[in-house]
């Protein structure tokens, strides 16, 4: 994806890729970082940095009628009142947010 963007800009050198991953995305930050360098070899992304922002899991509490950050993904409940809730508001993201490009 970042490569396409670089091509669209006439092979501009990508210095960094900003990624957002939710704790429920199924993607592990460490694993991604270790494979990133390898995947970038011989591409316009070679030598670029992968900057990852981890998004915590936020659920909607039906009792408080408010979004709340869960304290653990092993317990989907409101941290304020303890009400269990399956409604996930945030935390499943797996998105490329921005690229740092040198033109």
């Amino acid at each position, binding site marked *: *994806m*970042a490569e396409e*963007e670089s091509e669209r*800009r006439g092979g501009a050198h990508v*210095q*960094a890729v900003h*990624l957002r991953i*939710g704790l*429920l*995305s*199924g*993607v592990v930050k460490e694993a991604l970082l270790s494979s990133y360098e390898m995947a970038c070899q011989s591409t316009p992304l070679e030598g670029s940095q992968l900057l990852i922002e981890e998004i915590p899991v936020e*659920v*909607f509490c039906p009792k408080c009628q408010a979004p709340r950050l869960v304290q653990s*993904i*092993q*317990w*989907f*409940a409101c941290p304020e009142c303890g009400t*269990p*809730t*399956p*409604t*996930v*508001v945030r935390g*499943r*993201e*797996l*998105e*490329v*947010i*921005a*690229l*740092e*490009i*040198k*033109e």
Partner: protein
Amino acid sequence: MSAEPRLVEVRKNVLKQNDVIARALRERFRQAGVLAVSLVSSPGSGKTAFLERTLALLHARYKVAALVGDLATENDAARLARSQAPVRQIITGTVCHLEAAMVQNALDGWDLNHLDFLFIENVGNLVCPSSYDLGEDLRFVLLSVTEGEDKPLKYPTIFNSADVAIITKSDLAAAVEFDEAAARRNLQAVRPGMEVFKLSSKTGEGMADCLDFLDRRRISPSVAGPQLRNNSGDSFGH
């Protein structure tokens, strides 16, 4: 031309391509009136045995078909074909999960309008399949009594992504001193409100309740299916 690097906003879902295909599949299933149910679990939890029994029992009343994912063999498809239902194997090679495009390709030539149920057995894996929407209406996660009650806590992401949990191999529960209350507690902790069935594909114990559930879901698949998936907090809304 500036010497300083410039920040270009992109905001693109990494799995967008998969999600686009999955959405199209879901719409296709809805229009054809087929309820698509996927099965995920660790290897050896009994997905194929459960499917064998389910296909055999549903076959009398409904038109059912199945897709089964496996890294290397066609053994599962051969086992399931004995039920007389149409079955296709998806061999993933080194890929540890199914993707929406694989499902789409495997359906080639099948007329979904003639089907009531389509089962999609994922590769045995409790990690990667959680990130890939296959267009299914319902995702079943299987947990066998021999695996231990804390599986949901060890793999919360995939258990959270599922709609229904099936506790399998109930005929072995006493032998392994399976703590059912703890298992149910752990399931509810990672996915509050989750429907749970306990059964044995071998003896048939508990199968009836699960089939009744599938029956009820099928009555109006356009309402029951996708709605349930969306209720789980936009399960795949990356």
